[in-house]
């Protein structure tokens, strides 16, 4: 049962990440391409039925035109429907960052189709969302990997060797837990040069968010290691001459796998949010490279906040990603627990 739930969440996440990973194919335009004539265009709805009531199998959108009686309100220009074209050739991109291609899932004929509207520079928000996901999710992944690496290292050393080492490492971890980490991020970021290339800034962010979060998973892993090393089979292996390295690697660390996976599923969205926080404050990946953080940083301006509601849409689209991770985390945890219970009851059978 838990297995099926787990697979379901995995499929959902794989699908969502597929969209982001193949952003070049799924997004119709280059995320940095500007169109100053069409700034802050509202999202275009996909239609299947025209005003006369005819059903079309090819979806189409209407371009926006200014309402004649107002200076800035727009309405759909139903006289000029723009049919969607599928598998069209458009802007050049590199699929997965490697293979040059120019095929896109969909696109317009000559007018741009912007499903999520455009931003202050007339850039397609939909394309920016998908491309921004690449940056933000990758930062989340790498940050979580770094954190878990540090956490596993500290936790297993502290739990396995115990004594003074344990005390010292755990007090150090508590220090990290007690720090207000958001301000620590600011401080860390502030000490580093402000004007850095996007790539450098990206790795900086990963380094910063990865380095502050290790304490909590570290403590969890320590707990698992503490109980794992007391198991009879570990004692038995020691009695047969096993070295510490062997015991750690073969008997103790495999037991932490469940906790590490669960923690990863919790940490990735958390770190994506951390990246967003930094970017929102202008300390993240700089423009014109899109990231989920700087996609939302437009909302800092009051005028945007009140006039262009569609600038919120990216935030809404991120929710399924985070929900997916949290669902994965909870079913992973359930699975780990079932596994533990099964193992415990196995011990009683002779």
């Amino acid at each position: 049962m838990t297995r099926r739930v787990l697979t379901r969440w995995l499929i959902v996440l794989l699908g969502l990440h597929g969209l982001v990973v193949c952003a070049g194919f799924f997004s119709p335009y280059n995320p940095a391409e500007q169109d100053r004539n069409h700034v802050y265009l509202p999202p275009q709805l996909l239609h299947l039925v025209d005003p006369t009531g005819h059903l079309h199998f090819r979806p189409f959108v209407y371009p926006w035109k200014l309402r004649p009686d107002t200076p800035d309100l727009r309405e759909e220009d139903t006289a000029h429907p723009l049919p969607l074209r599928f598998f069209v050739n458009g802007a050049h991109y590199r699929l997965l960052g490697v293979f040059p291609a120019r095929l896109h899932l969909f696109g317009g004929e000559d007018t741009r189709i912007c499903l999520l509207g455009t931003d202050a520079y007339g850039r397609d928000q939909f394309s920016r969302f998908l491309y921004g996901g690449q940056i933000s999710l990758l930062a989340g992944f790498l940050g979580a990997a770094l954190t878990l690496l540090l956490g596993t290292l500290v936790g297993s050393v502290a739990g396995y060797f115990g004594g003074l080492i344990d005390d010292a490492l755990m007090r150090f971890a508590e220090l990290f837990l007690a720090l207000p980490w958001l301000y620590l991020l600011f401080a860390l970021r502030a000490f580093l040069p402000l004007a850095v290339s996007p790539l450098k800034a990206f790795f900086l962010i990963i380094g910063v968010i990865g380095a502050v979060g290790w304490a909590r998973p570290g403590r969890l892993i320590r707990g698992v290691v503490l109980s794992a090393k007391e198991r009879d089979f570990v004692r038995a292996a020691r009695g047969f001459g096993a070295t510490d390295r062997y015991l750690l690697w073969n008997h103790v660390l495999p037991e932490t796998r469940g906790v590490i996976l669960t923690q990863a599923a919790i940490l990735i969205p958390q770190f994506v949010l951390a990246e967003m926080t930094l970017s929102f404050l202008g300390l993240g990946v700089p423009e014109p490279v899109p990231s989920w953080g700087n996609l939302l940083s437009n909302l800092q301006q009051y005028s945007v906040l009140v006039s262009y509601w569609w600038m919120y849409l990216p935030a809404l689209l991120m929710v399924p990603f985070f929900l997916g991770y949290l669902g994965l985390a909870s079913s992973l945890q359930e699975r780990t627990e079932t596994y533990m219970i099964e193992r415990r009851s196995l011990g009683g059978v002779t």
Partner: protein
Amino acid sequence: MGLEMTALLAVQDLHVSYRSRGGIAFQALTGVSFQLMPGEILGVLGESGSGKSTLAASLLRLLPEHGQITKGSVLFEGKDILQAGSVELQGIRGSRISLIFQEPSLALHPTMRAGEQVRQVLAAHESLPKRVLKEKTRQVLATVFPEEEGRISHSYPHQLSGGQRQRVLIAQSIACGPSLIIADEPTASLDPTTQMEILGVFQSLREKLDLAMIFITHNPALLAGFADRVLVLYGGRIVEVGAAATVLASPQHPYTKALFRSVPRPLERPRNGEKVKLPAIPGDSLPSSLPSEGCPFEPRCADRMDLCRKREPELIRIGGTQAVSCFKFES
């Protein structure tokens, strides 16, 4: 007297204590000394809490973290194990001395195949080419599973019966050809039929491999016809030691006597269907009920004297091989 020259294992005045949270130490073993000759089987007899398992663990320095060897020496093949460095110790464990734990279902790794677990012991001590290692693993498993070595080798512990698991543990323990095996209640969790089967395995190993063995149990019946010598522990002290035939047939210490009386004899039916109560030793041997002074068995002893409360008796040799720590035998 020449005896010490040939002894495989010489334990001298071993003291082990456990620290509790409040810093109060509990003395688990007090002044335990004995010797083991190559190829000899020593049966260690005692009830729960007598220090049997502590003895087994301290010989290989595998005590839990709060356990501490406070005094004594364990000379194995002339080297003091208590002074050995960690690398040296790892070389001895599993290779020269093997320890078999009580609970075979917990002592095996649950997600590793049986053959692999044996192979790992070999690999830890000998750097052999893969093929040789594989062949040696097969041979070792075949000594304990003459018939279905192949199937067992590929099974996970949960697919094996209790007796089979214990055999896998035995295979692990003999893999590197040790000269001493310490078996800590190896049959306690098995049913009587399997117990005898495993005992048979130990017996045949002894004939084949010329092993010395320390066989720890609470059941005197298992030692009859198997052990060469028997050592009886009570409250962390040796109360009686001697040749198995002598000790089992004519125990001298009041504790040993009482212990043997309380073993049920299924074949002795009371006449006329009368019910006869099994004689039990009054009191218990919990650490809290052990006296702080005098003989540890004094509160429960039927033959106690005034002297017993004042000081501790020492092991007194009676007869050729037997020694008893009781004032009754002091001349």
